[in-house]
């Protein structure tokens, strides 16, 4: 018998601090698989956010630089402009990318900055204890919407990816999930395509990943993974939102 599945080389051998069933663990792993398969470990610089994944550098065995909350897109812009040969990716949560970082995200996409944004959407602010995020669903209970999100007071969940698709500088945007083997493989393909978009110098790429957060959703891992299909992806439909790369689907 031969081994057909094991830890990717660029994923450090360190137990994840993430909760059981958390989407971060999956996305970290498939991103590292892509980095290995595309031979990018020596060229990659990642920019993790404040948040549960602030310690992403404990897991990704690539150069990484901390960023202030929400500023990942600006840091990535400066880094990529200063040294275009690097493969630069930001790894950002929903608050980081679509609340405090909205301006940076939109304008980096608008300028077609050639980095990849991996956008982890778990509809809640995880690290700080479960407050409302821009992507929190209507009626969803969080610690700052204890009566359920009321659009009249708190607005609607934002589909930032669809908004970014309106910008000419954004060339590849896809929304995926990591709550089933098929979705996980699709996420991996999307990240690979996003990195390829960057390598080809085509413009801004973003992969939005619907990510289960069992702890703050107050569910078991299995319930959380099901909730992504049953509820969350109804608000945030999976699929390619924009693709003007002209390339065939990465496989």
């Amino acid at each position: 018998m031969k081994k057909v599945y094991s830890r990717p080389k660029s994923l450090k051998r360190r137990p994840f601090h993430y909760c059981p069933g958390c989407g971060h663990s999956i996305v970290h792993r498939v991103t590292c698989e892509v980095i290995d398969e595309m031979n990018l470990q020596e060229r990659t610089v990642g920019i993790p956010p404040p948040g549960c994944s602030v310690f992403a550098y404990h897991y990704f065995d690539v150069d990484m630089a901390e960023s202030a909350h929400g500023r990942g897109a600006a840091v990535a812009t400066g880094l990529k402009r200063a040294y275009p040969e690097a493969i630069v990716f930001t790894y950002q949560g929903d608050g980081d990318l679509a609340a405090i970082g909205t301006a940076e995200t939109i304008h980096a996409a608008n300028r077609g900055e050639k980095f990849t944004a991996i956008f982890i959407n778990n509809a809640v602010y995880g690290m700080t204890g479960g407050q409302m995020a821009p992507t929190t669903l209507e009626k969803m209970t969080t610690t700052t919407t204890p009566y359920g999100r009321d659009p009249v007071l708190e607005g609607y969940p934002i589909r930032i990816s669809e908004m970014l698709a309106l910008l000419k500088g954004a060339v590849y945007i896809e929304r995926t999930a990591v709550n089933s083997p098929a979705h996980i493989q699709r996420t991996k393909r999307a990240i690979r395509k996003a990195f390829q978009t960057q390598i080809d110098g085509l413009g801004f790429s973003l992969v939005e990943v619907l990510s289960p957060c069992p702890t703050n959703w107050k569910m078991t891992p299995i319930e959380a993974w099901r909730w992504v299909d049953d509820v969350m992806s109804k608000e945030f439909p999976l699929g390619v939102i924009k693709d003007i790369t002209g390339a065939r689907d990465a496989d």
Partner: protein
Amino acid sequence: MKGYIEIDRELCKGCQLCQTFCPKAVIGVHSKVNAAGYVPAVVNENGNCTGCGVCAIVCPEVAIEVYRE
């Protein structure tokens, strides 16, 4: 197709996703808690395992290695 898997007991956080997704009922729940306090997954019956790898794909902790003929 024959296969077998190895689950790292100490990495497992007992999320049971592997058990949920395994098409061959290869995985069950251990009787003992691991050092971190989780009840880890355990291989029931490797005789049914085809080495499809679905368990490893869904395992968030990269706790499973998969072997196939």
